[in-house]
């Protein structure tokens, strides 16, 4: 597919655990077009998070290729992958993973500290990101002064701030109540629809999966449908 942002081809991922070889992804291929909002579902251990990690450049496949926006991630070394992640992908985790002693503003600013932007430019970017997630008024609050939903919004702002092509979300609503989860999913839909972000989301929650444009199921390292 020529308009694919993500192209995963014949990927295998195995781990050696003791004397046993554990196959996590088994000859998996996947194309994700630009602007897609894809939900990945499947039982625990099916390989969802591993696939997400490969696409996010956090891990490399045992064999096969992972290409994102024309870049072969499987051929990049650790340093190049770090650099690539800083500008092409934003991560959203289940437990938000904000640095507890930094304010919302500083947490969102973290990815920008790796860029050559000036202090005022960084401030502008951070304020824009916080505005998108409707948390501009909480910029000076520390994570422990925010609710779970607000913390996840800060994490989303952090993922957005460097304007990446793709957002990788690992159970983004897994730690939230139903109403807050709905808010977060609505926000992700807005980011996908209005801001053109391609979103890959791993979830166990069918309601979350319904927010996506399409859903794929994995089982034993293979796509089932």
């Amino acid at each position, binding site marked *: 597919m020529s308009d694919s942002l993500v192209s995963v081809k014949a990927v295998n991922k195995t781990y050696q655990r003791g004397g046993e070889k554990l196959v996590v992804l088994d000859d998996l291929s996947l194309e994700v077009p630009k602007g897609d909002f894809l939900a990945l579902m499947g039982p625990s251990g099916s390989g969802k998070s591993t696939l997400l990690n490969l696409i996010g450049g956090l891990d490399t496949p045992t064999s096969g290729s992972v290409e994102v926006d024309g870049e072969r991630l499987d051929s990049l070394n*650790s340093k190049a992958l770090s650099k690539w992640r*800083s*500008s092409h992908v934003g991560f959203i985790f289940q437990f938000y*993973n904000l640095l507890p002693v930094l304010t919302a503003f500083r947490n969102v*600013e*973290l*990815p920008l*500290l790796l860029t050559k932007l000036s202090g005022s430019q960084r401030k502008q970017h951070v304020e824009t990101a916080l505005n998108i997630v409707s948390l501009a008024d909480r910029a000076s609050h520390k994570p422990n002064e925010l609710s779970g939903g607000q913390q996840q919004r800060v994490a989303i702002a952090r993922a957005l701030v460097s304007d990446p092509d793709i957002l990788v979300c690992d159970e983004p609503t897994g730690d939230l109540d139903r109403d807050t989860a709905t808010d977060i999913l609505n926000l992700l839909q807005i980011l996908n629809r209005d801001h053109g972000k391609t979103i890959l989301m791993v979830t166990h929650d069918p309601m979350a999966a319904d927010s996506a444009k399409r859903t794929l199921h994995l089982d034993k390292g293979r796509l089932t449908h």
Partner: protein
Amino acid sequence: MYWVLIKASLFRKKIRTFLTIASISIAFLLFGLLNSMSAIFTGSMQGMAADVIMVMPKYNMFGTQPYSNVEYVRSLEGVEKVTHMTMMTSDPLGSMFDGMIFATDENIFDVYTRFQTTEESKEAMLQRPDGVLVGKLLADQKGFKVGDKVRTKASFKHEDGTFNWEFEVVGFYTVKNLTGDELGIMANYKYIDDSRMTMKGTTGYIIAEVLSPELADGISNKIDKNFENSDRATRSGPENQLAMEMVGDFGDIELIMNLILSAVFFTILLVTGNTMSQAVRERTADLAVLKSIGYGDFQLFVSVMLEAFIIIFSGLIVGMGIALLMIPLIIAASQDMLQDAIYLTSSAFITAFLIGILVSLVSSFMPARQALKLKVVDALAKG
């Protein structure tokens, strides 16, 4: 960038960071104070001249040697001026003061130039056999004035059969450094020798100024060789070297100091190393997130190293700073006796700085490596 990461780490557990810095400060305070006092333990005090040699009884630093030794030393080639000093201690119970009485000749001020007085005082001493010059510090403490009588119960038996001695204050003396020497009294040797019942014709220390510091060792060796294997065997050498040897008689103080300091710094190493390891372990998820958003392995390695440097150097600055502030207080508390005896040299600061660098590197290397090697996927999976 680094400052944001380091600040985030340091302030994550404020009390732990504070206690770690406090324990390092105490270690450096101990280092600073021990170092400032090392001159006392090693004898390498400021103001001791290298071209002045001291000749003392070999086996007893408070013993005596025949006065004829003074003449012998004076006769040696390379010796410019000679004087001598007999120390008479006073019993604090029956005395107006509990310092030392130095029985000496009037030329003491020409040879031993760190002792100073006025020409009038010297003249007054010559005019009055029982006249004494009182050290300025002692005079200030006891309020002695010219014309005052100083009565003391001394270690030498007076020819009247008692240990009671009476002198008259005719002036004062000061010292250029090692102010503790101002707690004594200078008396005429001839008067004391004539008036004492025992040990007549002996003296304690011989002090000789040689033509140049290079000659000091050779002349000292010659003197000691001359009296070797006799009942008047001597120990001679430049004043500072002799002071070190005398301290050495009590044990290897420098070795003991080094052992204490090694124990102190081994403790710092363990404290910091443990704190850093614990901090990195607790921040596994944070480090994983930082790596996921693009921070490189080496950047996080450097960040952990810098964190240790900041902790240790904060402790170093506080500890050495307090030591620096405490020195004038200790000197004041000693009533200036320790003036010029305790001080911090630039080499102490350089040593502290080098220790700081070494301890920072050693204590943070393993935790920093832990951060470097951290696998994002594994760390995130563990939560």
